[in-house]
């Protein structure tokens, strides 16, 4: 593989990362080829030593996703990281899919249900006292508040479970690094 081919495939693999981050990575590898050329090594030899650029890009994307997830835990960073995790495409990750996708579905369903309970509680709280809620005004207020509080509490628990699950997935993904794993065996 030539230097241009390597960089082209790396650049394509990194599409979607913030452009500054991707430019930084590309710059590193350009400099690497330049320094190797000054030592008289051939482009093909250097590309061979660096490994598959597509694979490299997928691992770097996951690493970037993990970093952003660690810096700010939000649904969108979690989603980006999980997509990057699936993008690694290792066999045992694919084997995990039939378990993983329903689990993600169940989590999303639970969030929606809890949101529904919260809104329902709000409706009871506001509309209950005026619409003859069984047990009177005080019961309507308390029932509404109770539903909302329960929804908030269970959502908090669910968030903890979700964070734990995402962390476990990302940890599992990191086990699959081949190229950026520090210390590579069988290179010589």
């Amino acid at each position, binding site marked *: 593989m030539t230097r241009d081919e390597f960089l082209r495939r790396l650049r394509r693999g990194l599409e979607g990362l913030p452009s500054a981050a991707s430019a930084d990575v590309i710059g590193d590898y350009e400099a690497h080829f330049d*320094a190797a050329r000054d030592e008289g090594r051939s482009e093909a030899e250097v590309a061979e*030593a*660096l490994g598959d650029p597509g694979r490299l890009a997928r691992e770097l994307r996951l690493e970037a996703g993990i970093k952003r997830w660690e810096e700010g835990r939000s649904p969108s960073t979690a989603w980006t990281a999980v997509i990057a995790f699936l993008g690694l495409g290792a066999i045992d990750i694919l084997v995990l899919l039939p378990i993983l996708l329903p689990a993600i579905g169940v989590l999303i369903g639970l969030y929606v249900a809890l949101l529904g309970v919260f809104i329902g509680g709000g409706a009871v709280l506001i509309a209950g006292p005026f619409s003859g809620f069984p047990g009177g005004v005080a019961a309507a207020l308390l029932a509404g508040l109770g539903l909302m509080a329960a929804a908030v509490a269970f959502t908090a628990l669910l968030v903890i479970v979700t964070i734990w699950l995402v962390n476990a997935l990302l940890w599992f993904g990191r086990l699959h690094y081949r190229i950026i794993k*520090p210390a590579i*065996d069988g290179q010589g």
Partner: protein
Amino acid sequence: MPEAIEIQLKKGVLGLCVLALLSRANSYAYEIASKLAHAVDMGEGTIYPLMRRMQSDGLVATYLEESPAGPPRKYYRLTDAGRASLQSQLAEWRSFTAAVDGLVGDIDAPIPTPLANAAEDAHDA
């Protein structure tokens, strides 16, 4: 199994090796990688994620320096935090290797006879 131990060992000391190299002289990634590749058999592409991680951990900082040929090079230097981390990792490394040496150091000296082995086994049991 020994292979796994070797990988774990190398993984653990890569950061220490980079810090030690940089404490002697500022350097650029290609140079660090080629020195490490000889010493610990590390794939040369591995250096970039490692340097980026160390940079975001605040252990190293970068600056640009003119190179004899071509565009300016990105050089790495130790930060104060990097120097402190080097000292503490070095102390850990020394006490670890001293402890392991203490355990394995005298294995080469006396060649155990089958008789002594048997006696030891009996003793263990």
